[in-house]
């Protein structure tokens, strides 16, 4: 079903006027660009069908919505901190002095037709963008889809995630309202807490003492020029690698490590994807038309003196805010004449480490497993218990930090003291991932055992049969070959053996690697083999 096929078909039958025009137009373009080779190559790219494979698409489509709505907003937004008196329609801010950025954002909200809807579309799409990237990353992680040959694309995808966070934060700070100003002040404090370079960087960034008069225009340049340019470039590479590496698929009859089963881009997938884009756009617009986001008019213009209760960043920066809130008090100390703000440095280090580990995780896992094969079959999460458990631990760690960012709201809404919330979360930050790891691993192993049991003996049918000898047995219903395939096709790993190197020595790195490898694969359930099944059938059940 490629474009070329369609054309040969149409020449065979008497072509209609429309088809003749399409053919001529395609030929015109092809003769001048030689694009048919590319279309043939890309158009034949196959997309397997599974709901979780569409999450990356959601991110892509929200990004397109962000670009469209953002372009509209740049027509009316003034990225300037020049003070002026607000004279727009919103009564409780009339006559108040504010920056031109804030005033123009209020004008977009109240005095420009469709402006408020566009602002809300832009902001909701941004939240959905980062959320769908997060979910997409979780899908890729838990199915092991980052394994060779896709490690680099994981890293690029992760860079996209970080860029999305940066885009989000710079955008959040642009209106120069009270909430965003408070957020910037936290960032300023964070930067100033870094030893030696902190104060210098802060003065460089803000063009003097916070808040200065430059930050909005600087962030604007980053937000609409530099970051989107890098993001689009990285996105291009991400999509290109996706095409080159081909898509992963779940194991199934006829679906092997060497093929991809699904619909080709042209025309089936392209049509579906186009429709899906409008669905995503529609959902975002529906939300934006009915639910307020970032009502800067209630926040008022930024002024360094007021700090509102319940000041939070957008959800995707919440984990960083939470980390700051969870640091126990009294971690600052003096080193000679200098204050070492461990309450800032510790969370920065912990979060930095967390981010780096997530970024390079595919390489770490490949080193531990010693697996150099290509993988095009997505794992079921249960079939890789240790990886799934590591993922669950990471999610728990992130979730605790995230929850900590709303510690005050948890306190007021559940009528508990904010100190108790913080203390509980501090403990959970350490214990939670450990508990999640152990529990998840056991659940995975249990599910694998159950799968093995079902593959070998089938389902209990509930039908009790009395044998001539008087013995009662329950008849088990066997699985079909198709169903059994899904349960049995996964690879079993064994821990790496320690092998001496060329000099006949066992290096420390080798020992660490072997230790980690046996920790990774010690507890395992073997997939059911053909002989296992035959043996179980012979045994009479």
């Amino acid at each position, binding site marked *: 079903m490629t474009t070329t096929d369609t054309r040969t078909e149409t020449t065979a039958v008497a072509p209609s006027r429309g088809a003749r025009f399409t053919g001529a137009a395609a030929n015109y373009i092809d003769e001048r660009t030689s694009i048919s080779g590319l279309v043939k190559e890309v158009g034949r790219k196959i997309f397997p069908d599974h*709901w979780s494979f569409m999450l990356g698409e959601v991110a892509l489509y929200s990004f397109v919505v962000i670009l469209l709505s953002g372009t509209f907003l740049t027509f009316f937004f003034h990225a300037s901190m020049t003070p002026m008196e607000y004279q727009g329609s919103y009564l409780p801010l009339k006559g108040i002095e504010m920056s031109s950025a804030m005033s123009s954002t209020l004008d977009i909200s109240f005095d420009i037709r469709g402006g408020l809807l566009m602002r809300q579309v832009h902001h909701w799409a941004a*939240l*959905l963008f980062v959320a769908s990237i997060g979910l997409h990353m979780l899908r890729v992680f838990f199915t092991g889809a980052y394994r060779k040959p896709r490690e680099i694309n994981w890293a690029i995808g992760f860079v996209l995630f970080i860029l999305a966070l940066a885009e989000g934060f710079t955008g959040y700070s642009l209106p120069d309202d009270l909430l965003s100003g408070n957020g910037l002040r936290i960032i300023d404090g964070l930067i100033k807490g870094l030893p030696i370079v902190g104060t210098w960087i802060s003065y460089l960034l803000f063009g003097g003492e916070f808040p200065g008069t430059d930050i909005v225009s600087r962030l604007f340049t980053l937000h609409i020029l530099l970051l989107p340019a890098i993001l689009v470039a990285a996105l291009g590479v991400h999509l290109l690698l996706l095409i080159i590496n081909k898509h992963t698929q779940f194991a199934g009859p006829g679906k092997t490590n060497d093929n991809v089963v699904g619909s080709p881009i042209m025309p089936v997938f392209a049509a579906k994807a186009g429709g899906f884009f409008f669905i995503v756009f529609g959902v975002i617009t529906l939300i934006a038309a009915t*639910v307020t986001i970032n009502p800067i008019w*209630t*926040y008022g213009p930024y002024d360094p003196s007021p700090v509102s209760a319940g000041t939070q960043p957008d959800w995707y920066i919440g984990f960083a805010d939470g980390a700051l809130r969870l640091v126990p008090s009294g971690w600052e100390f003096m080193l000679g004449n200098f204050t070492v703000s461990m309450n800032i440095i510790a969370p920065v280090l912990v979060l930095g480490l967390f981010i780096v580990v997530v970024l390079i995780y595919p390489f770490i896992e490949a080193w531990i497993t010693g697996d150099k094969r290509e993988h095009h079959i997505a794992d079921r999460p249960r079939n890789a218990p240790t990886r799934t458990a590591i993922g669950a631990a990471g999610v728990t760690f992130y979730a605790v930090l995230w929850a900590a960012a709303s510690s005050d709201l948890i306190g*007021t809404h559940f009528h508990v003291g904010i100190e108790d919330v913080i203390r509980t979360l501090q403990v959970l930050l350490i214990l939670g991932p450990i508990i999640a790891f152990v529990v998840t691993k056991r659940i995975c192993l249990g599910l694998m055992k159950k799968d093995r049991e079902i593959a070998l003996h089938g389902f209990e049918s509930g039908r009790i049969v009395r044998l001539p000898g008087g013995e009662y047995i329950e008849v088990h219903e066997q699985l079909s070959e198709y169903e059994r395939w899904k349960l049995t096709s996964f690879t079993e790993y064994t821990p790496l053996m320690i092998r001496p190197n060329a000099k006949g020595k066992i290096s420390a790195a080798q020992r660490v690697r072997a230790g980690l490898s046996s920790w990774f694969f010690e507890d395992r359930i073997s997939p059911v083999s053909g002989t296992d099944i035959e043996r179980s059938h012979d045994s009479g059940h």
Partner: protein
Amino acid sequence: MAKPTKSPVDARKARKAKTGRRSPLASIALIAIGLVSTGGAYALFTTTASADTTAAHSQLVDDGSKLFAANCATCHGLNLQGTTAGPSLLGVGAASVEFQVATGRMPLAQSGPQAEEKPAQFTTEQIKALYTYVAARAPGPGIPDSSLLQGDGDASAGAELFRINCAMCHNVAGAGGALTEGKFAPALKGVSAQHIYEAMLTGPQNMPVFNNNNISPEDKANIITYLKYLDDTPSVGGLDLGNLGPVSEGLFIWIFGLGAIVAITVWLTAKSN
């Protein structure tokens, strides 16, 4: 009317005979009598009225004293002097008592981080008796004048004062916020103008006092105007999600936004299978 050619007496006679009208002086006299009698009656009535008020006042103080002894004295002491369980009420004034009792915060249901709002335990008349009694024992901030509670001040001045003085505890949209050890600043939606004023004036629970030197009565009226504006104006952008800011927005996009999207992806792929 009188013609200069005729003598006044003749003219009067003639007029009497012709028209039967009263002399203008009579009208003046009548007005004078009317004024004097009304004024006198007014003076008479007001004296009786004030006598009545004094009587009513002492009646209220009496009632209040009984109510106080029955409901408040256990913690605040029979002479308002305070006990280990509750503070002295000498000098707190009518405003404080009205606020605490009319919002149901007093009498306290149980000891806890702070007294919480609940349905008022007394009728308006009983509340009046209570605060009149407490105010009669020692002077303190009184009930605010209703002219300050109309919500007709300057909303933008009020909004600015609110951001500077109130937002750090009550949240910039008045949605409330957490304090230490389980205490909290309540949400301000739907709080009556009088209670907002009294709260600023007397500083209930953990709230600081904003006296009239700190925030003038006019500025308090401006703050009330702003809060009334927030109450009366529907959210322009749609559902306000409790005005809790990014946390509720984040939860909304994960649960409803991404939830809807995932449901759609499952639906799309289920169709094709």
